[in-house]
């Protein structure tokens, strides 16, 4: 089992689980950071990242996602190549211009691929891959 560990960032005495992931863009990889959010069903990035990846936002599959205040926002799903550590895979990422939070979000669809531990005592988030 492979293990990837990422130290928490901190802000005003609070721990923030930020993870660098790489997204495939125009045949290259770009590293973009995201907040590991176990409360998010989808992995969600703002529409500016879709632009970075040269995706046509509105050509994605449209779904509605509920956000913190209970309102619905339009999200467009696109297949994107992603790399975490040395793991490469393709995943549907939701992009939205209405995300309204300060982070891009890694959601439960990523967590399905790993055993994810929020180790608050060590202030680390740990991704364990089931692949050998």
């Amino acid at each position, binding site marked *: 089992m492979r293990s990837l560990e*990422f*130290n*928490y*960032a*901190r*802000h*005003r005495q*609070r721990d*923030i689980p*930020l993870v*660098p992931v790489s997204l495939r863009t125009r045949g*290259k*990889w*770009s*590293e*973009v*950071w995201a907040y590991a959010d176990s409360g998010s069903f989808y992995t969600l990035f*703002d529409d*500016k*990242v879709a*632009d*970075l990846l040269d995706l046509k936002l509105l050509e994605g599959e449209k779904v509605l996602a509920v956000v*913190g205040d209970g309102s619905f926002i339009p999200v467009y799903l696109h297949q994107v190549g992603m790399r975490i550590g040395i793991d490469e895979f393709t995943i549907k990422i939701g992009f939205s211009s209405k995300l309204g*939070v*300060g*982070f*891009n979000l890694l959601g439960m669809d990523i967590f399905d691929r790993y055993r994810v531990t929020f180790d608050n005592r060590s202030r680390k988030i740990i991704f364990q891959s089931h692949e050998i």
Partner: protein
Amino acid sequence: MKSNQEWITENFESLVSEYGGKYIGVINEEVIAAALTPKTVLEQAIRKGKKEEDVSLLKVPTEEELVCVL
């Protein structure tokens, strides 16, 4: 020299203070560009002679966003 990952997590609080609301690009313990979009950050980095794939892109939240989200 620290990795981009180490440097960003260790300096996150000051990054929020200085760049909240923007995307930044980090290479070798240095913010090499800041802009409202990651594409602009990469364009600025390339103009400075940096390799696109070496840039670590972070959407930096504002203080207010951190209060609301967390």
